[in-house]
């Protein structure tokens, strides 16, 4: 059934049902007597009519076409596709935690509040920060929260002229998008060839309108930004603030802290670093942590310790306000909390050490066959620049990625960062065994051989997937937004 490709409407047969409800023992009223005519449908909604077994087979077959960390190795660079321990799911499903109502009185949800408080504290500690909000729903949402906090900081001081945020050209696309969404002007500076910040360009970009700088460390190329002390000094001396994009946090847990590097505000991707479900909709969580001088701007409510226990603190007049309904993706917070508590301080440090070791091991194995633009110790991920081959062969990174599908892998991130033209960005994570890494390395080497011996094989890959090579140009130019004209 691997090639199953129906939509649920095609399985539909008029009159087919999963359940038929018994006759109601409450008096039935015609719908017209309950709802004004203007709001009544003239025709029946075209819903699929299927039996229970039809539904189960339909969705089971579709789900079997999926690929995830529970199926195999998923070295998608910058995404930290680590295995998600199942104990996270057990905890999040506990009735005492999962069957709460967000409007329950605080005194009846003390356990949940304590978990949120402890998670806020743990995240602040890991990042070298002071206070945390758990509200943002994902990384980019966390970025927006952080930049709005920076804005509130400048505006409270009356510095309305500070309207510029600097990002390097190697940054994640969400960084410039966040800057624009927050109403700031973007100043993009070039990176050095090794992905580090070009200090000269940074100095040139700084003027009296500087509001802040957004940066990841390790950089997008997976290398530690050693100039961070000098960068932080430059930004702070000119009245700006530093924002840390936590996308690459998996490289440094327990080793170094953004707060100690001089960052004022940061976000975490709990769905990357802290092993909560990721891909396929998550949902994510982009908790934001700040230094004390920004704490009063955090979205409200923040969970605080009160005399009698824990409670929501709404009394924060300088707060940027709510950034999401209720208190964030609570079920995800439970999973991240479980991860931190089961790993412990030493476990988190060991996770980062192993993530870095795994990446370096793979990098050294693959540099024989693939171009390695930055041949130095990497952090949790590394970037290759395509095959070591004559460019005239016409074999590009895209072909390598497509061929990997035939070997049963989710390909790495390709063509990002943009500063490496044929980029293949590999992040193995710490949860993979030596054997898994070796199997993937062998597949990459086999593809390098195939590229020399039979380039056409790569050009037409993949062969073993339900959908063969997709025409991306046609897909981008001719949008087909519905399955059929009528069903």
């Amino acid at each position, binding site marked *: 059934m691997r090639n199953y490709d129906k939509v649920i409407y095609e399985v539909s047969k008029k009159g087919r049902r999963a359940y038929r409800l018994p006759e109601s023992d409450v008096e039935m009223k015609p719908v017209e007597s309950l709802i004004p005519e203007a709001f009544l449908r003239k025709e029946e909604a075209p819903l699929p009519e299927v039996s229970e077994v039809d539904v189960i087979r339909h969705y089971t077959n579709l789900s079997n076409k999926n690929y995830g960390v529970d199926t195999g190795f998923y070295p998608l660079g910058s995404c930290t596709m680590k295995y998600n321990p199942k104990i996270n799911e057990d905890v999040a499903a506990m009735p005492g935690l999962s069957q709460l109502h967000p409007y329950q009185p605080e005194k009846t949800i003390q356990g949940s509040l304590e978990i949120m408080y402890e998670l806020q504290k743990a995240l602040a500690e890991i990042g070298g920060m002071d206070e945390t909000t758990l509200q943002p729903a994902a990384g980019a949402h966390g970025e927006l929260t952080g930049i709005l906090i920076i804005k509130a900081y400048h505006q409270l001081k009356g510095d309305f002229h500070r309207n510029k945020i600097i990002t390097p050209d190697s940054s994640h696309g969400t960084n410039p998008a966040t800057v624009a969404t927050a109403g700031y002007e973007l100043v993009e500076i070039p990176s050095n060839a090794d992905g580090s910040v070009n200090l000269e360009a940074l100095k040139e970009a700084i003027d009296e309108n500087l509001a802040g700088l957004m940066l990841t460390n390790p950089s997008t190329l997976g290398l530690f930004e050693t100039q961070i002390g000098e960068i932080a000094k430059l930004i702070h001396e000119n009245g700006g603030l530093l924002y840390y994009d936590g996308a690459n946090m998996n490289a440094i847990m327990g080793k170094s802290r953004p707060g100690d590097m001089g960052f004022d505000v940061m976000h975490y991707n709990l769905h990357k670093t802290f092993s909560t479900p990721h891909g396929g909709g998550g949902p994510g969580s982009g908790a934001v942590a700040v230094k004390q001088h920004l704490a009063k701007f955090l979205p409200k409510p923040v969970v605080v310790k009160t005399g009698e226990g824990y409670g929501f603190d709404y009394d924060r007049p300088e707060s940027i306000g709510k950034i999401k309904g209720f208190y964030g993706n609570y079920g995800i917070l439970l999973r991240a909390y479980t991860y931190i508590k089961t790993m412990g301080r030493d476990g988190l440090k060991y996770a980062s050490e192993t993530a870095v070791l795994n990446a370096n091991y793979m990098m050294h194995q693959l540099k024989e066959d693939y171009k390695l633009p930055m041949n130095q110790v990497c952090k949790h991920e590394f970037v290759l620049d395509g095959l070591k081959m004559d460019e005239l062969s016409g074999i*590009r990174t*895209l072909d390598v990625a497509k061929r990997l599908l035939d070997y049963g892998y989710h390909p790495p991130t390709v*063509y990002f960062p*943009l500063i490496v*033209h044929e980029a293949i960005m590999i992040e193995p994570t710490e949860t993979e065994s030596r054997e898994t890494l070796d199997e993937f390395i062998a597949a990459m080497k086999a593809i390098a051989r195939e590229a020399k011996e039979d380039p056409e094989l790569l050009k037409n890959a993949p062969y073993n997937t339900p959908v063969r090579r997709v025409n*991306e*140009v046609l897909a*981008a*130019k001719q949008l087909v937004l519905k399955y059929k004209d009528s069903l």
Partner: protein
Amino acid sequence: MKVMEGLLYSEDHEWVKVEGKVATIGISDFAQHQLGDIVFVELPEVADEIAKGEVFGVIESVKAASDSYLPVGGKVVEVNSALEDEPELINQDAYENWIVKIEMEDEGDLSGLMSPEAYEEFCSKEE
């Protein structure tokens, strides 16, 4: 990679052909190759006044959307509207398929551009 004689080149990989006060501008073969299959070209309006170094259009490929920066400032006198329906023309021949024609305000802008030989050397370092 093809570098065309008789043109000037910018560090942002645009080529410039000068005829009197009018500069015809496109992207180099190197640039189209790096971008990959182009799916969309956003053009400026005729009569727009655009300064040197400002964005005059956007080129979107299957890999990325990139801003294009004007190598010489001036007024847009013509745009290659064939690219609106067939952006892939740039992939087919980046030198034949120009993007905009600019009436230059200051021909001094040309002095910062590279000769074909210098550009070829510049690209070999980018590789």
